[in-house]
């Protein structure tokens, strides 16, 4: 591309503007989380505290926060494990099974991705109440697995369709059963797809708010998003602590994302771009 120097400079300035718009709220969140409670808010706002401290983080990491954190961890990791396993089983059958009515079933999977959670939540709530599962991990895990499964199947199906068939075919010729082919060939080869799908499911469940708000009723069972929302009222405008909690809630998913970004980006875009 033969861009002139002026064009390049202009484009780089626009990039700087884009980065600023994205980063300014983050920068401010971190700045306020490091502000000592004694330092007053000023107009115009000071962008960085004079005397940064991690005091807010220590205060915010109270026992209830640790409970919410543990709950989020249990629910999210269980959901990732179950969704990705069931999703891979289903995707394998969809792509290799040559079953009857397969395209109709795939259509139902795609349609289910679009169901508004708020529109189906009342019957799900009643089922959970009937099964005595309200305010348990299981109510959340079951709901999260169900709502993430259609997208997970879709993403994994995309990956399996791109796997070269030759390896599986030669294994089958050698007499391997479909189950052996699945464990020895398909699972190892799908690793990038499994990672991408796991990251997607983790991001979705770590932040899920509507089901958690509706299905949990005691502090012992709250997850981080609901707990964080509760903090707003409890702490009035103690924004330092609120921002410190927010940073701590965000860090785990951010860290996972940064290490596995490559896989995730490929997985998310594959479905939409290749169709």
């Amino acid at each position, binding site marked *: 591309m033969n861009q002139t120097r002026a064009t390049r400079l202009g484009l780089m300035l626009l990039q700087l503007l884009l980065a600023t718009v994205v980063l300014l709220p983050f920068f401010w969140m971190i700045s306020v989380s490091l502000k000592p409670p004694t330092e007053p808010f000023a107009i115009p706002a000071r962008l960085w505290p004079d005397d940064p401290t991690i005091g807010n983080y220590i205060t915010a990491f109270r026992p209830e926060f640790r409970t919410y954190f543990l709950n989020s961890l249990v629910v999210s990791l269980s959901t990732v494990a179950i969704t990705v396993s069931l999703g891979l089983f289903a995707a394998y059958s969809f792509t290799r099974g040559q079953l009857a009515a397969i395209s109709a079933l795939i259509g139902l999977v795609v349609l289910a991705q679009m169901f508004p959670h708020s*529109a189906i939540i009342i019957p799900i709530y009643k089922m959970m109440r009937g099964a005595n599962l309200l305010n348990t991990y299981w109510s959340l895990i079951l709901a999260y697995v169900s709502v993430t499964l259609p997208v997970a199947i879709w993403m994994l199906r995309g990956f399996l369709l791109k796997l070269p068939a030759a390896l599986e075919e030669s294994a089958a010729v050698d007499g391997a059963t479909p189950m052996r082919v699945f464990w020895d060939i398909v699972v190892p080869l799908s690793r990038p797809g499994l990672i991408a799908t796991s990251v997607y499911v983790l991001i979705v469940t770590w932040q899920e708010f509507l089901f958690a708000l509706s299905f949990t009723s005691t502090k012992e069972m709250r997850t981080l998003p609901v707990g964080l929302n509760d903090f707003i009222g409890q702490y009035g405008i103690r924004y330092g602590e609120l921002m410190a909690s927010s940073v701590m809630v965000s860090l785990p998913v951010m860290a996972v994302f940064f290490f596995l970004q490559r896989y995730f980006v490929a997985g998310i875009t594959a479905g939409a*771009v290749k169709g």
Partner: protein
Amino acid sequence: MRQDRRLYWLLLAPALLLMAVMLYYPMVGTVYESFHETSFLNPDPKFAGLALYRRVLADGTFAEVLVNSIVWTLGVVLLQNVFGFLAALLLNQNLPMQGALRAIVLLPFILPGVVAAILWRFMYDPQLGLVNSLLLSAGLIENSVAWLADSRMAMASVIVAAVWKGFPFSMLIYLAALQNVDRSQIEAAMLDGAGPVRRLLDVTLPAIRDVIVVNIVLTLILTFNYFDIIWVLTKGGPQSATHIFPTKIFETGFGQFRFGEAATYGVFSILVLSVLVALYAIVQGGASRRRAAA
């Protein structure tokens, strides 16, 4: 072979069963609930015919929720796709630091929705918020604005917060599409003397048309159903100025325990979403036919 087939069905069964019980049954269940009345005092559902539909339609907030949902959805979808596309163009240039910038731009997308909402609630705080502070220093406003408490500003404010959180997702998909565009076509257009704008309109946009359609439908559905941002920022207020279907359903169902009416709102929300998607499909289909005819 028959045994193989049984194995494939067995592998498929848990996923299908779960989706049937937890997604398709509740979809039907919502319609059932919308014909049955329950309340906090009378939790046993009683058949009510169309009474709940009449009640919801007669309630003044229904029209407001409908209009708000449409304004919110169209506003977020339009801005998110425009900014997402422009950001993707910017990240598809041959400039230094593209990888780092892409990672930075994706940050709001990974940020949990409730965190993003709390952050923006704080940004919009009339006294302590950065938005007022910056606008006052720049002389763009003379007095602090109560962004979320003023019913004329609240909807625009929640839309801005949602676009900030959502445009990276659209950017990501547009960027992948742009990187797939055939370079030779662009180079051919350059040899013909087409400037950057002509190349964009004549080569790039037609090449990624399908991705634009997918992106718009996807963001339309996600935005219409998005609960977190509005609930944390305004709870649908002030009055009902930012109430959309998901927040109204949650408030009616779990705030007032009127499951029947909440389900009725749910049925309406599915209808409205279907109409929006269908309208877009018709407009899109018409545009394609005109192009084909031209």
